[in-house]
């Protein structure tokens, strides 16, 4: 008793699943190859591999470029994530709650760092830092203490905050939109001051959004190359820059091994976050 309706629908379903599967394979294939390659024994990739080895992973640890880059990337990403949340959460509250005049422009403006090419943003911020240094040079205190802006860790973090903010604002705004405002009013009517209501009710309820915001902010900042290229100080490297520089020099499975480690790091962070928040529902 299978009706033709069913048949054509089942067919459509299979077609759709085919497309979905295709997309999946398309995204996964390069990643699978790079994981495979990181275990090749020989230095120059060729098929079939001569054999498998873990040596490229151990090479990473003996290369100070990679370890120093990793540490700097972590510092910058953690700093930028924290500052980004401190700015982004209040901004999200503001956007979700008030119909103020600059609301629409602000909302659109927050998309800018997502859509302005990294290279343009990097240039712009670099130029901005240069000009700031020049302007600051006219102040006695800056001259006396020899404060540098260009290439400083603070300047790099400030720039990365720009990358974190759109994610933090959008993810927190999304959780606030799902929040029934009357639960805050209920807290007020039960005797809580607005500050008590925020910390005891609002914040716990939107925590999943904040966790997701932190994750995405961290990952985006950690992996950024384009902006960092211009802003990192002399003699310093973040992990992505270390990779780029290594690649200019030679191609061997070390790079694949570094990539695998980085994917593992991000994957772990996503899996942990996913336990708190269903990412696919928030993002």
């Amino acid at each position, binding site marked *: 008793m299978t009706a033709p309706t069913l048949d054509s629908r089942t067919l459509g379903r299979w077609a759709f699943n085919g497309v979905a599967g295709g997309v999946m394979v398309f995204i996964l294939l390069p990643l699978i190859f790079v994981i495979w390659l990181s275990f090749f024994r020989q230095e120059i990739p060729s098929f079939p591999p001569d054999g498998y080895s873990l040596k490229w992973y151990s090479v990473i640890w003996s290369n100070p470029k990679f370890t120093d880059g990793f540490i700097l990337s972590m510092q910058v990403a953690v700093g930028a994530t924290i500052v980004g949340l401190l700015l982004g959460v209040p901004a999200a509250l503001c956007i979700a709650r008030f119909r103020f005049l600059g609301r629409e422009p602000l909302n659109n403006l927050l998309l800018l760092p997502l859509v302005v090419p990294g290279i343009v943003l990097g240039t712009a911020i670099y130029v901005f830092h240069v000009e700031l240094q020049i302007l600051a040079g006219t102040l006695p205190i800056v001259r006396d203490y020899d404060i540098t802006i260009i290439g400083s860790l603070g300047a790099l973090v400030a720039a990365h905050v720009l990358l974190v903010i759109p994610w933090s604002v959008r993810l927190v705004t999304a959780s606030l939109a799902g929040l029934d405002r009357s639960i805050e*009013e209920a807290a007020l009517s039960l005797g809580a001051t607005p500050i008590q209501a925020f910390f005891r009710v609002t914040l716990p309820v939107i925590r999943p959004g904040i966790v997701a915001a932190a994750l995405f902010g961290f990952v985006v900042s950690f992996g950024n190359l384009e902006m960092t290229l211009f802003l990192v100080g002399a003699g310093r490297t973040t992990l992505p820059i270390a990779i780029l520089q290594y690649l200019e020099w030679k191609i061997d499975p070390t790079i694949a091994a570094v990539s695998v480690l980085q994917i593992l790091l991000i994957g772990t962070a996503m899996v942990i976050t996913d336990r708190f928040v269903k990412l696919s529902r928030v993002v």
Partner: protein
Amino acid sequence: MARLELQNLSKHYGPTVAVREVTLDVGDGEFIVLLGPSGCGKTTTLRMVAGFVAPTGGRVRLGGQDITAAPPWKRNAGMVFQSYALFPHLTVAENVAFGLEMRKMSKAEIPTRVAEALRMVRLDGYAERLPRQLSGGQQQRVALARALAIRPDVLLLDEPLSNLDAKLRETVRVEIRELQRELGITTVMVTHDQEEALIMADRLVVMSEGEVRQVGTQRELYERPADRFVAGFVGRSNLLNGKVLQPGRFQTDGGLTLACPDAAPGPAVIALRPERLVLGAPAQGQANRLPGTVEFVSYLGANIDVHVRVSPADRVVVSQPNRPDTRLPAVGDGIDVGWPAEAGVLFTEGAART
């Protein structure tokens, strides 16, 4: 448990008037229902009492004290929200305890008060559940327990039953009313459901377009509606447009001449309650007796509604109690409709209004 007084309470949003000069005196332990269609200002009025909306003008007094300027957290008003507004990350017991903690009650006393509040709404065994693990009806009772646990001076209910299904609503409305009567707590409820309002209220406040149309008991509203709006909104009415020819004589736009209560001549509307009309033989003895044709018949169980066309422009609904021996008229039957002159209520003002 205190008296609540509203004096000329108003709320304007720019040029829009949401609530206009509402004055109301709610006695200690009284159950008042604000009733009206959506957008009539009833919820805004309730929110001004709760402190969530700052009035543009007027005063709110609770237990003799002026609280117009007090923030919500200093008002001691327990509120039940339409969405229940339970804290999703807290258990039932923690939800109920929230207001007590905010009042800095001693840690030793809180569990007793929480248990007492949960017993009141028959949720003793559910203290450790999270709100999402409860049914809609149970959530509603947690919201009620949470509002009552702080022993508020006034209980505010914002459409508390609108998210329950029809059959459950029938029992819950009686339960809430009996609990309120037992606790003797002054209560203001907002609803758009006239049946709910009639069942629960001591007195009703009918609102429309930001204004109070009438305040009174069920019987006052039903038998002596202040205007055409109240006559149509509280219970059902057949509204016939026309004019008063002379005191006691009314002519409909459809050309029928009817006996009616005395009123000054001029355009008017006559409102007839469907259950005051009679059909067939009993219509013979009435002051008004009109031949008509049956156009629609509804068997509603306890009652039977018969729609009868009495003139090309006029159709009336007659509601008859359903006795075991009642014969259902058929569509197309000719039938007489009758009613005593005093069954009609005349509105000369606002005759043009809907």
